[in-house]
């Protein structure tokens, strides 16, 4: 079966270059970013604040990964995170693309950092540029999914990193952090999931790789997509006993 064609927006950012090779095992990617690719990969020059560029980049695609972000700029955070998300959604509607993978920061640690079993509480993004703009983008996704019968999965995380290459002594794994291989797997599941699994057309899912803490749960990601960390990272964080 032919690979699905997927537009990867934010291809040269802090996240996408680490998962591009993994994603290419499953999808035919079209890379796009406003900045040069750190690995020198060929990509489309796309300013997500320009609708025409987003539309042109998305033409002919089966799905869109939106990994674009601006974290702290008082104007660009709105341009990239809010207006950019709007452009992705509008282009998807115009081109008949139904499946989108959206991304953003977790918005629960601030309010629930002393709690456990935190699965899917109402978000508390705060008034800072990064949190509020991504929160607004999630609401845009929810509204467009409902109005236009899209299927959108939004992955939330706090940190991303490579899986340790060997056992780690005397340290704990940071909470709400996903390793690259698990993010690739989650993206694969999000594109391949049956439309009925994405109830309401929009699902926000926690994503991380360590279930040992019992703090931020992956239960919803498991229910919706069948996601589980490929290889539990907690196995690498073990004391030697005896």
């Amino acid at each position, binding site marked *: 079966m032919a690979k699905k064609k997927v537009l990867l927006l934010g291809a040269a950012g802090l996240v996408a270059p680490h998962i591009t090779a993994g994603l290419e095992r499953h999808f035919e990617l079209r890379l796009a970013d406003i900045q040069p690719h750190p690995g020198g990969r060929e990509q489309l020059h796309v300013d997500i604040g320009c*609708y025409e560029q987003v539309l042109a980049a998305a033409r002919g695609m089966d799905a869109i990964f939106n990994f674009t972000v601006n974290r702290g700029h*008082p*104007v660009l955070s*709105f*341009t990239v995170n*809010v*207006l950019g998300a*709007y452009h992705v*959604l*509008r282009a998807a509607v115009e081109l008949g693309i139904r499946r989108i993978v959206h991304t953003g920061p977790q918005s629960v640690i601030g309010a629930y950092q002393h709690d456990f079993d935190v699965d899917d509480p109402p978000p*508390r*993004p*705060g*008034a800072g*540029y990064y*949190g*509020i*703009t991504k*929160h*607004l983008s999630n*609401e*845009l996704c929810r*509204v*467009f999914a*409902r*109005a*236009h019968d899209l299927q959108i999965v939004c992955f939330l995380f706090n940190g991303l990193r490579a899986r340790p290459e060997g056992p780690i002594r005397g340290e704990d794994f940071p909470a709400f952090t996903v390793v690259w291989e698990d993010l690739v797997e989650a993206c694969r599941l999000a594109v391949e999931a049956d439309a009925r699994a994405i109830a309401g057309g929009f699902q926000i899912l926690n994503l991380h790789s360590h279930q040992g803490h019992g703090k931020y749960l992956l239960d919803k990601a498991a229910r919706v997509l069948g996601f589980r960390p490929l290889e539990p990272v907690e196995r690498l964080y073990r004391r030697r006993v005896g």
Partner: protein
Amino acid sequence: MEVLVTGAASDLGQQLAAVLGREHRVRLFDERQFPVPARADSRQGSLLAAEDVWQAVRGVQAVVHTAVPPAGVPAAGLGREQALLEWYARGTHVLMQACVDAGVRRCVYLSTLELFRAYPDDVYISEQWRPLPPPQMEILGPYLGELVCREFAADYRIGVTVLRLGRLEYEETVAPDAPDLLWLDPRDAAQACALALRADLSQEVHSARRWRVLHICAQHPDGKYLIQRAREIGYAPVHNYAAVWGGERG
């Protein structure tokens, strides 16, 4: 109090200037020129320009954000949607940040009951119902602005009252052959704003209490949009379109 009113050039802004001016010193703010009542102050500037907004906000104790977009927004098409999205999202953020920086304690944000138009007419809509905005920014934008305000009320000592207003139509000039359960006379909208300003929610310890939402429209004999919660702050609409709704009782 000294109260800043945004969107002052709009008809609603002018109504607010008149009604709030009876109790408060009013400072009016808009991008375009507008009539300024004798006892009011005025500032001209853009909601998207942080310095303009700071100059408008500093020194006031309360803000009424009408959320009426400026006249310069494109009339239709993609450009209009983009401009409204930026104005409602970033513009509201600029305003709220200035309010926090200036120590403003009371904010009234005027949103819209159009957020509930998608529900069938055989339900009673109260503040407990989930908003269902369509993708059009005329209605989605005010909802996004609500979300921005809510996070400021959660993070800072500022009280925010969201008044979700019905469709503004003067009772005397309303088209009787197209009745709308959302009708609200602008004079009653201004009344609701004046009432909302009386409460200082900013010192509530629990963040959820620094934020409240009230639905504001005319009193229909058996209306879809309930206004009981607004009545608790004294809201009593005067203009209830009795000449139109009289035929629909029961």
